[in-house]
């Protein structure tokens, strides 16, 4: 009996809740750390990024308009589906990052826990970051945090799942929508995450996942007039300054992460806080 030939996968992008091929028609082979072929991933182009921004903008009204409690429930449901795909994630993280199964297992568990951690934050952000301000007059004055809009996320290049989840979850927990450029050489866990998102309750367009060359697509997102914030975590060192400069052209919020961020450590609120605007309302006290 001959050995079975495995089915080699050619993955697609995740935009607006659908899985389209790249507009450019390109794809590229993904290998493990030793150079063995794993799968083909779609190589996104600037037009894919543009379509993703359109989808994210379209989804923003609905997602930011849901109650914080409901967003928490939706995110928690994602964690449940992540848990169901645990074995697949462990295999993919081990393959992509070249770590032992045991280590991969701990990375995946931490990643799922991280998602739950952020899911718990959704209905606490306003209480922690908002305030009722004492003012010198007969007014109530409240400050409440509001999502900033569409966030372009350049996912970490090394940490393919834990890093990815650590950058996506805080963005959507507070009601933003995002366009994510995955790790260029380790995109497989991100692709599986897109399958998880598509089969959970997250509305299409809230998270859009593009695989491909970070340096090719990132400049188009940095200069895009309809993107409100940019996370530079996975940006190649050589174009980081240029990205910041063009992001300034449309007054984006830019998150410049600390070098060599350790994603295994329990995070603080900084990533949540990075994509929020503060709205202050004055209201007459009445008699």
């Amino acid at each position: 009996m001959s050995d079975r030939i495995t089915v080699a996968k050619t993955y697609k992008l995740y935009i607006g809740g659908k899985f389209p091929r790249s507009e450019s028609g390109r794809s590229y082979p993904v290998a493990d750390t030793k150079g063995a072929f794993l799968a083909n991933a779609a190589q996104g182009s600037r037009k894919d990024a543009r379509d993703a921004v359109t989808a994210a903008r379209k989804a923003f009204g609905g997602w930011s308009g849901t109650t914080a409690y409901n967003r928490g429930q939706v995110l928690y449901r994602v964690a449940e589906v992540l848990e169901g795909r645990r074995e697949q994630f462990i295999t993919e993280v081990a393959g992509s990052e070249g770590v032992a199964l045991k280590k991969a297992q701990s990375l995946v568990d931490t990643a799922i826990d991280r998602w739950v951690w952020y899911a718990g934050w959704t209905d606490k952000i306003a209480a922690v970051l908002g305030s009722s301000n004492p003012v010198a007059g007969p007014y109530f004055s409240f400050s409440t945090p509001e999502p900033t809009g569409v966030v372009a996320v350049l996912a970490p290049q090394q940490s393919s799942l834990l890093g990815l989840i650590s950058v996506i979850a805080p963005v959507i927990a507070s009601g933003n929508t995002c366009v994510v450029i995955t790790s260029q050489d380790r995109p497989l866990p991100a692709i599986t995450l897109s399958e998880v998102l598509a089969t959970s309750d997250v509305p299409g367009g809230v998270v859009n996942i593009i695989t491909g060359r970070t340096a090719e697509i990132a400049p188009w997102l940095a200069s895009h007039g309809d993107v409100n914030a940019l996370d530079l975590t996975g940006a190649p060192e050589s174009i980081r300054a240029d990205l910041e400069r063009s992001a300034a052209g449309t007054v984006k919020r830019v998150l410049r992460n600390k070098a060599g961020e350790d994603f295994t450590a329990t995070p603080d609120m900084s990533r949540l806080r990075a994509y929020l605007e503060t709205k202050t309302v004055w209201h007459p006290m009445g008699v």
Partner: protein
Amino acid sequence: MAAPTTLPSALADATRDESSLRRFLHGLPGVDQVGVEQRAAGLGTRSIKKASKLHAIDLAISMVDLTTLEGADTHGKVRSLAAKARRPDPDRPDVPQVAAVCVYPDMVKTAADDLVGTGINVASVATAFPSGRSTMDIKLADTRFAVEQGASEVDMVIDRGAFLSGRYGQVFEEIVKIKEACGDAHLKVILETGELVTYDNVRRASWLALLAGGDFIKTSTGKVQPAATLPVTHVMLQAVRDWKDQTGELRGVKPAGGIRTTKDAIKYLVAVHEVAGREWLDPHLFRFGASTLLNDLLMQRRTQLDGHYSGPDYVTVD
């Protein structure tokens, strides 16, 4: 029945009475459905880039009939629309003006007052838009009112019920009478292709409208789905081209409804060039009936000139 203009004998014969009109319309060659859809899809894949794209965008802007036909329209909204028609992108004075502003008859005066001396036309829908279900007297009064108020273009709807039940003479009469009531104003005849069902019917309705003296044939009211589609526009462009071949007269085409992106608009321009001919690439002979299209054209124009994508925060929201 009387032909409104001096026509070649074959066409003049067609308008002699109802039965010859029916004979003529049913004698028109049938439309090859697969062929026209394939050709429309094929031309739609043509790639227009860089300088030609920029030129196409400017041409498309100058062809827009900026439209608001909502029950909730107010004088304020019409005035802001008129301002947008004059200066579509306030940051960039080199953006061409649109061709016309299209409103309901009671808003015509507001629009006309704001557009005096700009060269922008005021178009008004009339004849019990959008259904066309009313008496002839009311339709005529509707038209006269719009023209008195200052409309230089009238968009009428045909009686689809009469057309579909084969009373071509009645539809013909109606167009002729409305054309008279229009006076100097241009008449656009809305066929409402979404309700005509077949391409053969679209071709017949197009010829009927051209015979009766419509200056433009327009696809849809925008209130019925499907509205404008590429294949339907192909059939109508063929009709005006054939009309020109037989009479030497130039008549226009206006797709309306459902054209929202620059990409769509450029596909239509390609169709105009390939099906009708170069001389139809002119706001006098081709228009887009649209409300959201203009913003997308402006954003694309900025993208072409600035080298990065623009967003809806940079154009006016109407």
